[in-house]
């Protein structure tokens, strides 16, 4: 069953500070992701892979097309949803692991990871337990758990970020290069976590530049260059 259907989506950036220059990014993006499937967006840098993920998360607006997903048992179009509906979708249906962690001063790694569960109504102590399990699984040293992640290394921050994205049981999980700054051991943990999500029936959509990881997790690779806007048109 498809959990996510992207239909004819297009995106341009209008740069008002550059005299209203219109930069077409992508056009006619159409694909679907089924439950338990991991779809990888492929293609060279700058082709619009991250933009697609950001549109599916509602972080970027879209100029045309639909982004259909099953939210609370019903089909809903994220592309035309209002901000509150998108916040609802993020709270219960769609999770996102960004490339970089946006840290909040004074909030500990445990609480950063537990936050999506707490927002979804889980008891704080329970959410923190789950956060500890995930951080342990990702080999983040226990002495760091109670510290705010701002001072962590890139790889440590990325693991906090991954734990934060994987902690919920959201049906759709978006991954923007989650393994980019990880060593081999932790890459293997992430591959295992992805396999576990697939077994649970989560639909995954991701970007992986690491060839080896991509081969291990991808059920299907979509070449994003085929969505390049036709400049002649």
């Amino acid at each position, binding site marked *: 069953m498809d959990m996510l259907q992207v239909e004819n989506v297009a995106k341009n*950036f*209008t*740069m*008002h*500070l550059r005299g209203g220059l219109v930069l077409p990014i992508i056009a006619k993006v159409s694909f679907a992701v089924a439950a338990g499937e991991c779809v990888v967006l492929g293609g060279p840098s700058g082709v619009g892979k991250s933009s697609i993920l*950001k549109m599916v998360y*509602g*972080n*970027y*607006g879209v100029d045309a097309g639909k982004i259909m997903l099953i939210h609370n048992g019903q089909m809903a179009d994220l592309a035309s949803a209002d*901000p*509150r509906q*998108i*916040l609802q979708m993020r709270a219960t249906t769609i999770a996102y692991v960004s490339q970089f962690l*946006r840290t*909040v*001063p*004074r*909030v500990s790694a445990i609480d950063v990871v537990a936050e999506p569960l*707490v*927002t979804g109504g889980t008891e704080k102590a329970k959410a923190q337990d789950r956060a500890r399990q995930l951080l342990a699984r990702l080999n983040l040293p226990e002495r760091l758990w109670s510290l705010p992640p701002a001072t962590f290394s890139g790889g440590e921050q990325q693991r906090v970020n991954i734990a934060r994205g994987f902690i919920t049981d959201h049906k759709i999980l978006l991954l923007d290069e989650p393994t980019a700054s990880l060593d081999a051991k932790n890459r293997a943990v992430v591959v295992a976590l992805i396999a576990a999500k697939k077994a649970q029936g989560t639909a995954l959509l991701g970007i992986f530049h690491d060839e080896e990881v991509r081969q291990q997790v991808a059920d299907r690779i979509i070449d994003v260059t085929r969505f390049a806007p036709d400049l002649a048109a």
Partner: protein
Amino acid sequence: MRDGQWRDLYDLSEAERRLLMRTDWGFVHQNPADGLRMSVSAGANVGERLMAVGGRHYGQIRATATDWLGRVEISADRIDDQPRSFSGGMRQRLQIARNLVTGPRLVFMDEPTGGLDVSVQARLLDLLRGLVGELGLSAIVVTHDLAVARLLSHRMVVMKDGRVIESGLTDRVLDDPREPYTQLLVSSILQV
């Protein structure tokens, strides 16, 4: 209103509006001196709002005030000190305690972190995030600081010359701004 009725604010009597300000609403001023009584004790500043809604038991008022000082990280032994002896950050935290003690449902904040040292600002933001989440409050915040907006808010409204020019999810307005003025604002943020 608490009874589920919609009322026009400007049809309310002054007495009704006054009650609203003391119960369901809070207002955190940019300058704490505008929102506090500077020459009565910290405890009395918090207690005044409780008395305004009918609190008469001194022991209970003091206990509640002590509890709230703790929640905004002001030590209990400062309860009898006047806010004029407090630092800017402490005054701002006291003002927040004074506003939240009656369990308002909507809080207005005018540049709540303006003029504070960044270390104090981080503490205040963390506190606000925690309290708003815990108490299930609605808040409207006015700020020039886009990092504060990103940290605190779900939705954002950009205004220019007295008009709303763009609104939406905070992260979308900041990451995919549409209007020329919003693009100028976002592109002017300094990277640390």
